[in-house]
């Protein structure tokens, strides 16, 4: 007998997680689709479900010292309109899915689902976001990029739940999000790109670039980014081909029902180039 749970407090949720294996549902916009069954029949889950959308204590956005902290059950539509939401994250959310989906979906769900084409992860990787993870006995922190191991695979343990997304406050002189999907709204990315940079006195002080849907995990190459810092925009622009060459070892896309690998690589390169040209 499968017993699904709908806890109203985090303590209750953690207690359940300690007892047996649950699939954690925040908004359910991925899991319900992935496990759909013949209409009018319940979805086909192989594990009991822990519905966490009633954990009111995990719905918040707050500022603490140098961080923006987002409760893990905060929906994307709230984040879209919240004044504390970092600008680049807001740009990404604005183009995600549809208003109805955004109303129930969450950042923690996007992290837990670990799709290589997830858009919000672009911003979270670029912003060095961390997550707070809790079990009954322990609270730990992890960067988002370390938590995600591969397509649909995370390092989240069976008794753990993501409770908070922690984003270091940062300021950039420019940010850019380009989503390339099959259409202009309500689309899954063929490839998408986030670029953030700070250029002061014609010197690049900070630059971050993330790309999705071109490898098993999102791409962020901090080694390449470091090499671009303290250079002038012109030096970088003259060096574009070498930079693309450096990225090419990471950009390893596949053919699927939405696009093909040649186009994904072509477009990823063009998006990097276009961003560098705006510096």
């Amino acid at each position, binding site marked *: 007998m499968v017993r699904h749970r709908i806890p109203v407090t985090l303590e209750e949720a953690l207690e359940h997680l300690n007892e047996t294996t649950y699939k954690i549902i925040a908004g359910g916009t991925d899991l319900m689709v992935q496990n759909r069954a*013949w209409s009018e029949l319940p979805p086909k889950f192989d594990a009991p479900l822990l519905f966490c959308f009633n954990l009111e204590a995990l719905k918040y956005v707050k500022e603490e010292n140098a961080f923006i902290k987002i409760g893990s059950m905060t929906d994307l539509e709230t984040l879209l309109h919240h004044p504390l939401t970092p600008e680049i994250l807001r740009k990404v959310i604005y183009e995600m899915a549809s208003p109805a989906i955004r109303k129930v979906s969450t950042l923690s769900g996007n992290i837990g689902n670990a799709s290589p084409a997830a858009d919000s992860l672009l911003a979270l990787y670029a912003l060095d976001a961390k997550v707070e993870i809790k079990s009954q006995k322990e609270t730990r922190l992890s960067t988002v990029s370390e938590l995600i191991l591969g397509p649909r695979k995370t390092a989240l343990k069976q008794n753990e739940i993501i409770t908070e997304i922690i984003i270091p406050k940062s300021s950039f002189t420019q940010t850019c999000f380009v989503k*390339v999907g099959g259409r*202009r709204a309500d689309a*899954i990315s063929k490839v998408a790109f986030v670029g953030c940079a700070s250029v002061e006195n014609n010197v690049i002080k900070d630059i971050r670039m993330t790309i999705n849907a071109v490898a098993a995990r999102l791409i962020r190459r901090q080694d390449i980014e470091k090499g671009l810092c303290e250079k002038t925009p012109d030096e970088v622009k003259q060096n574009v081909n070498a930079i693309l060459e450096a990225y090419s070892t990471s950009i390893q896309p596949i053919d699927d029902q939405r696009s093909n690998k040649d186009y994904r690589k072509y477009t990823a390169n063009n998006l990097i180039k276009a961003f560098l040209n705006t510096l």
Partner: protein
Amino acid sequence: MSTINKSVPKVEAKDKISGKMKYVSDYHVEGLHYAKTVRSTIAKGVIQSIELPPLPEGVTIVDYQDIPGKNVVKMIYEDWPVFAEKNISHYGEPIMLVVGPSKEMVQAVFDKIKITYQEETPIFDMVQSKVDYHFTKGDPQTAFQEAKKTIKYTYETGYQEQAYIEPQGFIGTLEDEKVTLIGSIQAPYYVKNAVIDTLSCKPEDVRIIQATVGGAFGGKEEFPSLIGCQLAVALKKVKKPIKLIYEREEDMEVTTKRHPSKITMEAAIDEENNITAIKSHVGIDGGAFLGLSSVVLSRAMIAATSAYTINHLQVDGDVYITNTVPNGAFRGFGAPQMIFAVEMFINHLAKDLNEDVHDFRLRHLAKQGDKTTTSGTFRDPILMPEMIKKACQISGYHKKKALYESSEKMKGIGMSWFLHGCGFTGSGEADHIKAKVKLRKDEADHVYLEIAAVDMGQGAKTTLMKVAAEVLELPLEAIHFANPDTDIVPDSGPTVASRTAMVVGGLVARAAQEINENWQSGKPQIVHKSYKQPDYMEWDQATFNGDAYPAYSWGVNVVEVSVDPASLEVRVEHIWSVYDVGKSLDDNIVIGQADGGTAQGVAYGYLEVMNHRNGKLLQKNMTDYVIPTAVDMAKTETVLFDNPFAYGPYGAKGAGELTLVGGAPAVAIAIEMAINKRVSKIPATPEYLMELMNND
């Protein structure tokens, strides 16, 4: 001039918007059973064994052995089985139904059925011709011999999915020997006739009722006959009411699509750089069974020069059978493929000949009195020159074209000119359909349209009721038009081929006229009318010679695009259209057809991608099969020209398909301008544009 075009609220709009309207899935019958279709998991081969689990009480398997009549769905050719017997011809081919009192029970049995196959090598290329047609006009051979030069190109088009809102399905009941099917359908009598053959029963033992249809676009023309036959066989065996409604993915994976095509055109050019003759070969992929493919092919071939007149033609065509899902009816019915090829070809010829495209096209534009492709006559006035001027004026076409052609900005503007034959091809109306309508007046002087026409959202109810109200000088409230029920309405034909307003509407007008002339207030009156072909029409089906259609609707589309330099994504900025549909029976409804038709037609040209891998369709849900959202859809501006047709009600001709057929070439020509490369394939996706850009 009649003011019938003045818009009224659609008669069913309130019920649809409020959610009150019942669709087939909303019907509930006491003791309802559920059916699920077991399908092949290979593209070609032979069934070796079928292993069934022990069946719980109440669960029944229905397959070909249960068919009392012929195991074939009655269409034009008898090659499409109701259930596969031994041979499998495509992935997803129906083998049997599992029927039971609950979905849980049906699913549990379904999951345990094991079928093994001897796989064979499937054929996916267009190499196995099953139907070939051929016709000529004038003397193409001499024209080619005398040509200064000849130019030849090949064009390809992909699948298109109808993407109606409501998936296919029926609810069936059995009373004594009588089968009743309520379904989401476009052609109640097609289903009825198919079921009669499959059950080998008396016509009065089959009753088909149309439930309110949530969109169809041709997808519910012939395919429902297959489901209807399967369900009827199941009803006879199980003897319980049964619901057989597809899920979205099942619907997308196994129902008919628009035929992919490969069209080669070769032109003979004279000293003045005019086209004297064209040789065309039209190849369409029929999928595993012919279905209506031969009719689709003939409509494509007859559109071989679209809105232009070329005096010498040789037109050949083939339907190729492949081990893929059968392709079938879809708004436009062969014309979108052909008109795409013709419009691209004319543009490419003008470029090769260093001719101004606009001038080159105008020199070849069809005029009243010209001979059609099938050597019939364009009898009615052709307003295209004025319509083209209007389209150029409202879109700023010439100025934008000059600007975009000389700029590096990746912007483009494209124009397409086209026609669409209204009604069935040739003598189809007179020889096969033989439409009948019945109008009944009751004691309260209310008039009931008893016709088989289906409103699938296109506005058939409102427009036909308006026609009757206008003729009878009655308020719309005194006119009634219930969903067709074959026990009540005569066969006024399927709701397809842009025939409903013109042909059925014409009959309704004549019947209403007769009631009006013999009006007896307070007394019931009944009038029947049957279709009569206009006297001038002559058609030889064997040679494709004569008047293929009683009338033509005409159109001009202009599409403006910009292409993103980094991603090569196309953004459609604006769409302008000018149409001659004879006489609009309701401006809002025609504009609705125009906006929807252009959205579907333009998206066919650049957005909608469907492919198969080893016979299995890859885009099988609305996430992966991308149709335009409101955000993708450009601003539209549509102008209607009055050009009344003598045999249509108030002069109305067809409007439903016309608005789709010109979208793809207009957007493709605009994209060509933006990227300065030749487009010869649709959909012109960013992936394809990348190939073009890389081929320097």
